[in-house]
């Protein structure tokens, strides 16, 4: 009895022990079953989509639809691959845009975050909040003026122009993450470096950057996912099909008749292809990603 009580008390004070207790008892089957159910619910749409993309053209068009493919076929992928300039062009545009957006975002927010966290600027709190204000303005409202400005600067129809927009969308959040993680680095480290004769750039490169790698990975990941999925900005900025990004092509390729008929097989093939890079990047960087979220959130 007293043992039970002490377990219960410990469980209450330390949540980690609650999990351990549950896992040690027979309740683990219940927990396991629950987790499996959650996984199934989360994965089902993805699996259904991949399966549908592997149906033959005839089967993908079946009414009512079949649950799983009765024969595997890559018809839908071939059709998507050959659409207009070829899928590789659009994937290339999307990747180039995302890469530039990541580079610009990191370049701007690492330096800005460092300055805001570590330099004795007058009114820097107010400045920081002011920079975050951009979060409350929907970027959709700014697209038309941006487009008109970019048209004069010859930045429309260009991957660079689109990447600048994607960077702008991503800046406030990234700045927030970067500044907080710079603040989390103990000041003693910098002081030690300064005593050894480092200037502020050296302190940034040699001392700070290695400590904020998780935050940089987080920022890069978010920039990638935002840029990869962004539709409206690309629609507004890009006027020629050889400059289109993947979301635009997926939207254009799926409509089959003038009254809105959808090519379901091709749509699912597009969904599958567009999901792959996101999953790959996430799996590669997930270790840093989780650490990055913590280092940004907990000072």
């Amino acid at each position: 009895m007293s043992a039970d009580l002490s377990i219960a008390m410990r469980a209450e004070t330390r949540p980690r022990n609650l999990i351990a207790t549950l896992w040690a008892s027979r309740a683990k089957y219940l927990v396991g079953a629950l987790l499996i159910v959650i996984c199934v619910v989360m994965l089902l749409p993805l699996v259904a989509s991949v399966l549908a993309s592997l149906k033959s053209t005839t089967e993908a068009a079946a009414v009512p639809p079949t649950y799983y493919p009765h024969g595997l076929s890559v018809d839908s992928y071939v059709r998507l691959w050959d659409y207009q300039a070829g899928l590789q062009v659009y994937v290339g545009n999307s990747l180039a845009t995302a890469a530039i957006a990541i580079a610009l975002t990191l370049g701007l927010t690492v330096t800005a975050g460092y300055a805001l966290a570590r330099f004795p600027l007058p009114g820097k709190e107010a400045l920081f909040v002011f920079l975050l204000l951009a979060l409350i303005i929907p970027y959709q409202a700014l697209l038309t003026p941006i487009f008109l400005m970019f048209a004069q600067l010859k930045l429309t129809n260009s991957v660079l122009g689109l990447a600048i927009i994607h960077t702008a969308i991503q800046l406030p959040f990234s700045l927030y993450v970067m500044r907080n993680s710079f603040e989390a680095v103990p000041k003693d480290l910098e002081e030690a470096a300064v005593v050894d004769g480092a200037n502020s750039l050296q302190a940034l490169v040699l001392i700070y950057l290695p400590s904020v790698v998780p935050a940089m990975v987080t920022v890069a990941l978010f920039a990638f996912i935002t840029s990869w999925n962004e539709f409206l900005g690309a629609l507004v900025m890009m006027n020629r099909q050889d400059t289109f990004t993947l979301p635009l092509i997926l939207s254009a390729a799926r409509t089959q008749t003038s009254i809105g008929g959808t090519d379901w097989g091709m749509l699912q093939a597009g969904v599958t292809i567009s999901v792959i890079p996101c999953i790959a990047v996430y799996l590669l960087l997930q270790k840093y990603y989780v650490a990055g979220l913590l280092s940004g959130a907990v000072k």
Partner: protein
Amino acid sequence: MRLPKLITVALAALLVAMPLGAVAEDLQMWERSGGNASMVDELVRAWNEANPDRKIVLTYIPHSEMVPKIAQAIASGEVPDLMGMDLIYGPQFEDAGQLEDVTDYFKDDPTLKTASPGHIQVATYKDRLYGVPLYADVSVLFWNKLLFKQAGLDPEVGPASLQDIHDMAAKITALGDGNYGYYLAGNCAGCNIFTFGPLIWASGGTIEPKDAADEPLTGDNLVKVLEWARMMHKEGLINPANQAENGETFHLQFGSGKVGIMGTGNFNLFLLKEQNAALFDGNVGITFLPGLEKGKVASFAGGDIVTIPKGSKHVKDAVDFMKFILSDNVQVESYAKLMNLTTRADMAKNKYFEADPRVQKMAEALDVARTPYTLKFFELINSPQGPWLQMLQRVYYSDDPIDQIIADGKAQMKAIAAE
């Protein structure tokens, strides 16, 4: 060590991105996605082959974003040289003064006289011409000869009136096994104006108002057509799943082989070839969409027109493309060869159509077809929240009195027309 590498990557990425921004001197053409892409691809291919020094670069703009995209392009001056658009939006852009007037270029052009009247009508505004037909979609009635045989009906005789449709559909529905006699899309405004609208026209009714002074939804028989539609639903002759049909699977219904009779478009024959070869090979009957009385038929002429937006730098070349697609050779060797309707009536008699009477029949539908002419087509008809779909849904699925439904529809349409 990390930072220099980062800068190198960024610079390399910028260098890669720069050349993509360069401007080519080809003609730029936009077309909405989801129209007849195979036809437009072929036209551009034929033109580029004949005009290697002034090629056209074709870009498909996502269907649902076409109107805002064009408006924005015109506002910024970054316009394409040619623009294919849903013909129904023609008057709106002509009224806004956003298209190049091509009347004088076509003054002595004989091909225009036989061009699809529906297309030319919407391409004309205050007696000035702003575009020519790019391709034509017409609505017709398909029937499934395999199901007709099973139900003991003569597979070679299609329905000639709404009563026929009802009687034949009842026999096919009686087969069971998931077969239904007829199909209407319950949640798709566009599908209904395309395939249900002609049933009203063929019965002497009208739908949309031309302008604020015009009375919408007129005709003594309108009530009877709507009562017929309600009866078709109430008697279960239409698959109840239609209530969720927003157009995304409308084009696949007939090819499922489970629908006896259905109003659909010429594009459906081409799709059928891939979707259901057994049906395509000699088991599809095609006739006109009928009205209450035998012998009265109608059709909706849809499709796209090709126009030149104001600000195009290659107007002369763009006009040449318009003339090119109306020329005899292209009409036969591009349109007809791909089993698409010719956009000139006098070209409908050609070797390709003569080989397939079904296509011939669809080409003839252009003669009985009409295209609504209104500046507010989207708000009145095509909008998912508009009065047209609201009215039909009440007819199909509620028990509200038909007279009341029509009166409400009239009031809503008038209010929109008066705005």
